């Protein structure tokens, strides 16, 4: 029964490949209050207009990339670019198996995600771009002060991650027309390695901690915003070759 269903499903997902590789939403630039407090950029951060993929890159899309760029197959990738778990949820180096084509791709390293975007003539979004886009709910461009919205986001964090991921694009688009920024997977950002949240975030205000000094130093300015805090904490725990079962990505591009 299960295998029959799986076959039916493969067909259904093939049909529902809504929004292919090139499906981006355009976002206006603007001034934005980040939840992170940058020592070198007091006040708001300014963003140039950019475009962002409407939903995360899927297994199916990443499979095409791997086929076209075999150096990114899991059996051929340079070990410094991806840890042993890279694409380990696929049946083979170029075969999805039980992994669904429409699910967001996970178990991808930062290097692999960057290479994918580059191959599309794009790049990973910066943290601020991601945060800017993700501040929106279905009707408002900045819903962050709404406690109800915060609770909705947190509900995802409190669910166990032992069930299969839903397909990308299942959730309602936000005010920019972008889906799945919350409630599906973590996402790499281009500058994730500058998100230096201390390994022990209880050391807030510690002058002796190198991670809090220098240009990239920052700390949480909006401590109620647990949704953002957890994203940042997650990303800052990783190295670029790392992969996890809940971490995917989407690409972004500059707009003229």
């Amino acid at each position: 029964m299960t295998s029959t269903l799986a076959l039916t499903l493969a067909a259904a997902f093939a049909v529902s490949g809504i929004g292919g590789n090139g499906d981006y939403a355009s976002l206006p630039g603007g001034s934005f209050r980040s939840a992170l407090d940058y020592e070198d950029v007091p006040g708001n951060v300014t963003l140039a207009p950019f475009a962002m993929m409407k939903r995360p890159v899927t297994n199916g899309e990443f499979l095409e990339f791997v086929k076209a760029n075999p150096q990114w197959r899991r059996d051929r990738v340079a070990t410094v670019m991806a840890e042993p778990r890279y694409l380990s949820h696929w049946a083979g180096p170029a075969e999805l198996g039980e992994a669904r084509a429409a699910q967001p791709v996970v178990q991808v390293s930062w290097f692999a995600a960057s290479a994918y975007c580059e191959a599309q003539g794009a790049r990973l979004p910066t943290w601020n771009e991601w945060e800017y886009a993700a501040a929106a709910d279905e009707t408002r461009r900045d819903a962050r002060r709404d406690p109800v919205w915060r609770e909705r986001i947190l509900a995802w964090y409190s669910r166990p991650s032992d069930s299969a991921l839903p397909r990308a694009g299942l959730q309602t688009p936000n005010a920019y027309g972008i889906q799945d920024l919350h409630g599906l997977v973590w996402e790499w950002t281009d500058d994730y390695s500058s998100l230096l949240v201390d390994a022990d975030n209880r050391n807030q205000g510690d002058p002796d901690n190198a991670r809090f000094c220098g240009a990239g130093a920052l700390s949480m300015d909006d401590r109620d915003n647990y949704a953002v805090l957890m994203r940042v904490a997650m990303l800052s725990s990783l190295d670029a070759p790392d992969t996890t079962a809940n971490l995917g990505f989407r690409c972004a591009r500059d707009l003229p």
Partner: protein
Amino acid sequence: MTASMRYLIPMLAVMALLLSGCDRDAATAPDTATTARTDADTGGSRKGDFGPPQGKPVEAVLTSPPHVPPPTGRDHPAKVVVELEVVEKVMPISEGVDYTFWTFGGTVPGSFIRVRQGDTVEFHLRNMPDSKMPHNIDLHGVTGPGGGATSSFTAPGHVTRFSFKALNAGLYVYHCATAPVGMHVANGMYGLILVEPPDGLPPVDKEYYVMQGDFYTTGKYREKGLQGFDMEKAIDEHPTYVLFNGAEGSLTGDKVLTANTGENVRLYVGNGGPNLVSSFHVIGEIFDKVWYEGGTKYQENVQTTLIPSGGAAMMEFHMEVPGSYVLVDHSLFRAFNKGALGILQASGPEDKSIYSGLEVDAVYIGDRAQANMEAVATAAESASTGDLTVEQQVKAGEALFLGTCSTCHQANGAGMEGVFPPLAKSDYIAADPKSLPRVILHGLQGPVTVNGTDYNSIMPPMSQLTDDEVANISTYVLNSWGNPGGRVTKAEAAEIRKAKPANASAGH
């Protein structure tokens, strides 16, 4: 060393006990502990009067937090003159946030006072002429009605005087006791007075003064600008800030407490309240000794010590490993979301034999590397209605519901009262089961009443869902939480997708 041996104190050694507390030396005494288990006491106030003050009156040294005056170093009772000034002033409570504090000596907490047991304290309380309020002082180290409050009620532009003999040794809170007392305390009117035992406290390398308090502002945590006192939050005991030394950042950044490895540090920690009890903890240290409740005896090897509102404790620890030690109220949301956080920074050479630092960060592959296959199969079902039974549709719909609808309507369909209507036992659904796929596909706006509660939010259209997905989610909801049952087919969903109702909400 057994506990009973440790607490064995020869009856004649009462004064020695004052010096050394539960002295380890006592353990070397003959083991007659089986019959002498009670701790010898200090005699309290009955034994605290060492006669009239001797010599010239002494001006008390008062210090601002986090500093502590030097030991009195005296071996005789003296007359100690304390001159404390009440100042009402605006100070930052957090970055960009101001608050009108009422203070003893211009700081929160107020000036630290240090005297010796048996001293006669001549207390002068001055209230600045530009104060708005009358104030007084209740020192917990005073023996007498009101702890001084009845003799120190001081109008703006006045000074009052009273004297007391410090009969009991210990660390005591003082605070303003003018009505409304809670408000005066909530505005920062508290501090500590240390009454040293006759032979002083064991010398240490560093002493610091830290005091916790809870604050109630009209604005939210870190809401910028001048914030007023919120009496309602204070009565509800819902503080906006819980702070050490009266401001966020008072013990962080360039104001951290410092020590060197190899040093003994003693903290004098009070809790002004007015409401919360503190679970005081220093992350990464263990208190070698805690004079709990600020009293005469100490406990050893303590992780967290409880400091009641209007209480205090002394704690001592030896620094071995350099680095930052974080002072917190271990009621942790107070520490990380309301400000109760400070840092003690220890300098000195690393000792890797005591603490190695990070040694390994390697890939760990647990025995549950991937989501279980049953769940994958469920997800597979979710994309298709094909030949599915109602049960299969329900199972498929559940996975989809969790992935999308549950963020608002909750995993148990209960919704959120007044914001997101319930789907559980819903009279709205019972009255029109086909409303489910219709609302999913076209959204809903305008007032609705569900199970007797009015709702007027916007549900966006979920047109990104396939007809299969809409059918499965609808069928799941119909068959869950006391709803009437039934099913919605893919064909029905497709039909409904084509017909936009009048109360549809806007798409994107």
